């Protein structure tokens, strides 16, 4: 695998495992960012190796730390349970075998302070990197390493063009774009990774468009 220099010397992280600890922090972090609300309750399902060796690797603490907004090198990760209590985040863990899931998978069901809800399934795929596999029941694939825009819209023609033109008007270059459909719900999830940060006003503008139900955005951390 071709890796950049600081994938070899790095990441700087809290141990013991880049997949079971650092990756788990990222999953929690990305989940809380996607909720776009301060999480007050989370029910977490651990699958595969996350379930069997998760506690030994601090996967549980790492997920909670990420939900509290910590990065993988935050030295408060081992104390995340106490910090969650202080911050009013209630959490639970269950082990469960999921069908066709990556061995290091977690499913997080989140509720935010203002009532927002999100269910996310993500896997830690090695070296601290992650892949999001499901959002609110819709199968998706993205890593959240680049600035990522997620648009929930009604499954009708026209939305893709609206979103892409509005981004190109602001000189934001689209690196990848994928459309995922929820067969039952009749809505679609558009996931766009961009080379530049997306200006906030572009996101607000998209939210105003008719037929667009929800827009989430994660920028990169560096």
């Amino acid at each position, binding site marked *: *695998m*071709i*890796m*950049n*220099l*600081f*994938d*070899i*010397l*790095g*990441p*700087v*992280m*809290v*141990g*013991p*495992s*880049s997949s079971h*600890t*650092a990756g788990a922090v990222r999953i929690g972090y990305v989940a809380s960012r996607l909720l776009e609300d301060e999480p007050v309750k989370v029910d977490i399902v651990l699958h595969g*190796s996350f379930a*069997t*060796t998760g*506690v*030994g*690797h*601090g996967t549980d*603490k790492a997920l909670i730390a990420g939900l509290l907004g910590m990065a993988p*090198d935050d*030295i408060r*990760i*081992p104390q995340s349970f106490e910090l969650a209590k202080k911050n009013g985040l209630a959490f639970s863990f269950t082990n469960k075998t999921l069908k066709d899931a990556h061995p290091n998978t977690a499913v997080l069901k989140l509720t935010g302070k203002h009532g927002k809800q999100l269910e996310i399934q993500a896997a830690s795929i*090695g*070296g*601290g990197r992650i892949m999001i596999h499901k959002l609110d029941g819709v199968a998706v694939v993205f890593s959240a390493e680049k600035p990522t825009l997620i648009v929930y819209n009604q499954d009708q023609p026209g939305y893709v063009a609206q979103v892409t033109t509005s981004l190109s008007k602001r000189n934001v270059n689209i690196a990848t774009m994928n459309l995922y459909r929820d067969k039952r719900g009749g809505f679609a999830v558009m996931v766009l990774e961009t080379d530049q940060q997306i200006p906030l006003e572009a996101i607000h503008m998209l939210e105003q468009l008719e037929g667009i139900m929800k827009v989430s955005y994660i920028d990169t951390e560096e």
Partner: protein
Amino acid sequence: MAYESLQEIITVCKEQDKPFWEVILEEDISERDVTRQDSLDKMRSTWDAMLLAAATYESNLKSKSGLVGGDGAKMEQYQHSAREQSLCGEYVDGCIAGALQMGESNACMKRIVAAPTAGACGVLPAVLVPYFQKRERNTQKMLEAMYVAAGIGQVIAARASISGAAGGCQAEIGSASAMAAGALVHLQGGDCEQIAHAAAMALKNLLGLVCDPVAGLVEVPCVKRNVIGTVNALSCADMVMAGITSRIPPDQVIDAMKEVGDKMDVSFRETALGGLAVTPAGMDAARRVLG
């Protein structure tokens, strides 16, 4: 584009009359599209994180399973008190203590620098930090050594693997040891070919090492394997500086490591289904930890 062979790096070094580390630095600048200063700053902060991690070891911590903790302090104590008795001598004993301490810090959820992985995070600091503290307090040179180490790791990752799940522990501790050996040779004034030969020897010596973590945790045997990676790196660097070379060319050694990894049974690749993990004592420990 990252280099996919050590020979390519050596060729560039010779053609452009540049040291190994400089070639890797320039590759990073073009690969990540950053300035020279950006790259050096990031390496500096990585080095600082390593130094900080080495300085903040806590001897009273125990890992989640209770299997790991405190040995680094014992070794440090021995290093200072057993000067006459010690076989390796005070300097090497300090390196051994450093390797144990970093491995334990990792197992105890402290902040470390993966190099190239978290499990093998003790090897590189165990050779670099004592060098910096006792031989030459020169930060610029340490950063150069870090570039050398990273460049070697990149080639191994590209040609073979640096993950225990893919290639066994030879890919983690073996790679870390190769990186550390090359870094040491640079610090000792060796040239680009000597750097590659030290890396090759270090990797050869650990070829076939399996990944067999007890209870699937990065604790036993991982912490002490950082020690063999460290001592192996020191001895390979000394061999190279004595004029010894690897009879098998460095890139061919890496390819052999890949072949061995590919043929390695899955029970020896981080699954905790073989080796030390399935010894009676290993199974007992696993039952205690996993309940």
